[in-house]
């Protein structure tokens, strides 16, 4: 009887989920449609003097490293600059800004000082036509962005600066929330009603004294008889017990050997840093960040100034609707860095990463010996790091694992004068055999434990 009610509950549950899913997808597609609308708007703009297409190429090649249209980078945002300054002024500035500043023009000096006197290099290679093209590009693109910013603003939301996605999201999520709540309430009511129905039916059954036939009644005698019979069979019992002992024992034994082995350890890190993106997609060399691996025993987790080499400019705004990526923002807040003014505050907080590869203190390991002297790839121990979204411990880091490698790996003595004496000695006695780290004493206790 209970089966009825539980089965029913399961059904209700799945229906609820399904409904929620449908509501969700529906609202999402609605949101996409709305976005598509907004992007289409504002494509028609007044033509400038130059050719915006030619200007695009020039802008990307020469200006984009320091300027963005809607955001401050090294230099100021360029949106609307054609309205703010005269054409003549802009030509003078772009072709040779230091000379222009030297003339003492007020606006030029002001902007030079505002940006910490980091001057813009002169571009003597630009013809006037080139500059016009660039300005045309800035104008067209700038107008596009301005229009895009205006459109949703009409919808009633107060956000201004590039907050296109954000406003849309807000509207939809409200709608979704109301729908969900309604669905839940309805589902709850249905469940309540049905529960009552079940209760009434059960009561009816009891009143009428209908006893369901007990199917299991006659079976147990036979069943227990076979079990008892088997239990009396000493050979079988012995066999069973020894099998259990062996299985448990071997599992236990294997487990004991793996005590403290943390292979596969993948803790959650304070920043969702992806090696797949950095080392895989972007092909950044491991030692660019882990520079210690070349010269020290520690590979070193890079300090934040190394992150800032790129992330001062790379802010992944395109993926977060114009906002700085929240993960990159974590770097900024750790350094107390303001991306708008590009200034560092005085309240930095270090980032506490969770250490993944924990060698015991009694074992000495030196990265430079392996990376620089032996020329071993990082992947040999750290696994396919360039495909890891989150890093995990790839190797067991047991002593057996170290020793196996030392026994198998040939010493990288070619071109290293240090090994001259050793190789001469070994060539005499081990003709044709490979000289492994173990042969040179690489598996002696004191080489790693002291």
């Amino acid at each position, binding site marked *: 009887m209970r089966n009825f009610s539980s089965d029913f509950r399961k059904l209700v549950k799945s229906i609820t989920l399904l409904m929620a899913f449908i509501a969700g997808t529906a609202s999402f597609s609605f949101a996409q449609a709305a976005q598509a609308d907004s992007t289409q708007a504002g494509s028609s703009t007044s033509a400038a003097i130059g050719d915006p297409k030619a200007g695009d190429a020039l802008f990307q090649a020469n200006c984009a490293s320091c300027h963005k249209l809607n955001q401050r980078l090294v230099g100021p945002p360029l949106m609307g600059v054609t309205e703010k300054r005269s054409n003549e002024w802009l030509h003078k500035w772009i072709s040779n800004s230091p000379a222009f500043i030297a003339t003492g023009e007020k606006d030029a000096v002001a902007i030079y000082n505002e940006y910490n006197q980091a001057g813009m290099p002169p571009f003597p290679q630009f013809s006037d036509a080139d500059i016009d093209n660039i300005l045309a590009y800035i104008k067209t693109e700038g107008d596009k962005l301005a229009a895009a910013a205006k459109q949703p603003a009409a919808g009633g939301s107060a956000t201004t600066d590039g907050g296109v996605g954000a406003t849309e999201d807000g509207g939809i999520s409200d709608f979704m929330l109301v729908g969900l709540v309604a669905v839940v309430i309805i589902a709850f009511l249905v469940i309540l009603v049905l529960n009552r129905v079940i209760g009434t039916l059960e009561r009816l059954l009891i009143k009428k004294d209908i006893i369901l036939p007990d199917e299991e009644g006659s079976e147990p005698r036979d069943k227990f008889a076979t079990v008892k019979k088997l239990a009396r069979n000493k050979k079988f019992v012995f066999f069973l017990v020894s099998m259990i002992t062996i299985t448990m024992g071997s599992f236990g034994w294997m487990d004991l050997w793996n005590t403290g082995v*943390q292979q596969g350890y993948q803790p959650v890190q304070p920043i969702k840093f992806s090696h797949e993106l950095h080392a895989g997609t972007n092909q950044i060399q491991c030692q660019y960040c882990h520079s210690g691996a070349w010269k020290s*025993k520690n590979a070193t987790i890079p300090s934040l100034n*190394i992150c800032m080499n790129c992330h001062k400019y790379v802010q992944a705004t395109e993926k977060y609707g114009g906002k700085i990526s929240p993960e990159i923002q974590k770097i900024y807040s750790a350094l107390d860095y303001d991306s708008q003014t590009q200034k560092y505050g005085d309240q930095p907080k270090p980032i506490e990463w969770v250490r993944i590869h*924990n060698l015991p203190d009694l074992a000495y390991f030196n990265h430079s010996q392996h990376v*620089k002297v032996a020329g071993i790839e990082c992947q040999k121990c750290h696994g396919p790091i360039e495909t890891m979204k989150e890093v995990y411990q790839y190797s067991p880091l047991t002593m057996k694992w170290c020793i196996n490698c030392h026994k198998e790996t040939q010493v990288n003595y070619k071109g290293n004068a240090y090994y001259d004496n050793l190789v001469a000695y070994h060539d005499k006695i081990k003709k044709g055999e490979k000289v492994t780290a173990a042969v040179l*004493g690489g598996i002696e206790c004191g080489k790693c*434990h*002291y």
Partner: protein
Amino acid sequence: MDSKKKYWKGLEEVQKTPEFIEKNKNEFAEPLPIEELLEGTGINAPTPRRDFLKAMGFGIGAVSLAACNVAPVVKSVPYLIKPEEVTPGIPNYYTSSYKGGSILVKTREGRPIKVEGNPNCLVNQGGLNAQAQASVLDLYDISKLKGPLYKGVEYSWEDLDQQAKDDLAKVQASGKTIAIISSTVNSPSTKSVIADFASKYPATKHVMVDPISYSGIIKANEASFGKAVLPQYHFEKANVIVSFAADFLGSWISPVQFTKQYVSTRNMASLKEKKMSRHIHFEAGMSLTGSKADSRIATKLSEEGPALVALYNELTGSSIGNNPTIESKAVASAIKLVAKELLNAKGAALVVSGSNDIATQTIVNAINSYLGSYGTTIDLDNPSHQFAGSDADFDALLADMKSGKVGAVLFLNSNPAYNHPKAKEFVDALKKVTFTASFADRVDETATLCQIVAPNSNYLESWGDENAIDGYYTIVQPTINPIYNTRQAEVSLLTWSDQPIKDYYAYVRANWEKTVLTVAGKKWDDVLQAGFIALPTKAASSYNFAGNVNDAASSVLSLSKSLNKDIQLHIYQSVAVGSGDQGNNPYLQETPDPVSKVTWDNYVAINPKYANTLGISQFDVVTVKNNNYAIDLPVLYQPGQAHGTISVALGYGRTNAGKVGDMVGQNAYPFLTFANGAYQYVNTITLAKTGGYEELAQTQTHHSLEGRNIVRETTFAEYKKDPAHGSGHHGKKHENVDLWGKYDQPGQNWVMAIDLNACTGCGACIVACSTENNVPVVGKDEVRRRREMHWIRIDRYYTFNEEGKEITEEEELKHIDGKFENVSVIHQPMMCQHCDHAPCETVCPVLATVHSNEGLNHMAYNRCVGTRYCANNCPYKVRRFNWFNYWNDSRFDNYLNNEFTQLVLNPDVTTRFRGVMEKCSMCIQRIQAGKLQAKLEKRVMKDGDVKVACQQTCPANAIIFGDANDPNSEVSKALTNERTFYVLEELNVLPGVGYMTKVTNTGLQEA
């Protein structure tokens, strides 16, 4: 073996006391304290079976539970913005300066962990003594102040500064003196700061006073030559050195510098040229220098004066002081002999005296002047500025204080309430001073009496400079930000006197650029890199003595006469603890005295035969007493001590040093007397038994070598005939049969050579080893139980020098009826010998100690299960067992049980756990680092790439380390020396450490 001499380590061994024999039967002095532990928990019966099973069950359960644990979360916090020069895992070295000698400070990730000598230093030439080595621990001392105090209450620096300025202004207005009491200040910048302070407060008076005073020498030089300076001595230029109780290798003026000089005429290179200086030593107590002397004559304190006067008369043929008589025939005849030798060595002779008496030093000056030492072995033109304290100035100030003329006193590196002989008077007089301030880094004996304590930063946290020798300027560079809320004393002085520059870095730099840098034509960065600037030295000219010998002689003789009553007390500086400034340093407290091998205490050193006559025996607690002062100290039998005298070390008995140094030993400073214008380190006292008994924590008789001759020596005369004399080599080598095959040593074969003739036994290597290898300090009780952990020890062997007697048989030692005065000493550093056929390796049941293909004996701590078989089987007794987690056990709260002091640990060396063996690893972390450096630079290893800690610090260069497979290495050359022998060679364990025989230059005596 050539030598038939009988060597012994302690009197117990000579006399074969039953306790000694009993103790030496066992490898470890005491059985395991299992019973003791169980009694503590209330179970008196032996462990029952059920308890055992319970423990087993719990153990298995606990282990299985422990096995379930997930990975511990270990945080890894990188730099926010990494300083360019710091790479985690790689040490940085910075030049700095310790007591005038240039040093290199090793830092790891921004924290100093080791101090090493700067090899280019003109004073110490790369050597460092125990105190400098231990100084890095003072940086992290938790007994130091965490911030400024005003009347015992924590204050902010701003409030403190305001208070100090107000008070100083009041004193200035009242017209009273503002006194700055300091130990010697030779820093040009500090001097300039004090001058600036004085320009703001014109009533300022700067008084320098040192606990160990050399004002006698300075005053005597003023009287003799018109130059009030501490001269520079050149022991390397002297063929004959005569010392009257000047412990110049251990504690006198500049011991590291003098050791370098002294050894240069007695080391391998010098012996090869058949040249060796001769050193004759007159003294009462057995000092380190006395133990190295070629001839040591035990001289009573009351006879030192007459002996000196007699020497003058003998040399010059005059008869000042009416030809005083010398009671001791030995001293009298020695003086005659010494005079002859000195005359033969005219122009290359040097006489020094450890006395602080002006008259005594005047006679020494007269003798040196007669011998033509000035301009050759003594340099008055480039004087030393290491000590400039004036006893008389302080005495005058004390009188002013008493009469209420002093309104303010500031203490800079000075602690007169503890280390001044008139401490009591001084403390009373201080009550009359209205404003008192101390710059001590802790609330020491003087700071407790002061209103303001403005804690000074450690020298490793400070900017500064020093000028130890004329024309030699060293820079003090900070290597870490102040650990506690401390501030440099100079900054305090600048702030209190409202100077325009308060940043001391800017001040020092400006001062250098104004003075030294302009003269030398160098830049600031050059100094930071080199660590020092040496201006050209002036030519040392000769001086003619212009003092009054007759007056000096009568003064000396009357002082000597006054000593000739009761028992004569010789007050000296111990080599490790020194004046007591670093009293809270556990490394120094546990460094054994070079001769007596006592740790953690001072004691009454007395000749055993003389003690017998007084009815005193070893370890009796006696009261040392004169009219003014009395202390209770245990007695130590010291062979070689002059009869009628006792010796007591200074630097102990501190009450406000910190938790390590408080109440260790007794303070002997109050026994000093002020006489004839200077403090005298001698007195007369009486002894009385208290009935108490206190066993001193000695390492002396530990690890006995069962009467086997392991040190070998010869005389210079024999050496000249046959360089191999005494080394046990007779030209032909034995045929040896080995049970084991030879190890392949394809790369390097690390070995060591130790020159017993160079080693002075100073103990710097012990501290250097401890700091490098995280060797724990175990404390007094554990040393008594023979559980000291030092990886390197210096064995000290006595032999008798009874004329005409050669002691050949063990039995004969018992019947020695001599005075126990005429003994000589050999020091032998002993550490793991890294035997090629090591007996320890074959008995280890778990293969925790195995051989490497580089000739080293490895020790894997985590494999060790603590059977201690290896220690039992080691013929050299160099293995140490960790009875406890000394670095993390509240019962051994010596220093490491806090987060500050643990910062001193070397991160490249494991801290060993309870229950494992450890021993010298030949600094394997340095070997590995040196090899890696060569690999990274793709080059063959050079000799000198790897220096072990003991070798690096050794002031005598007695230890040479290197690769025996390289025939051109220093060590290979040293080991092919004829003097080389191996300890217990006959066992054929093929040790990797070779020793070179000690050579004694018996000089004229043999003729």
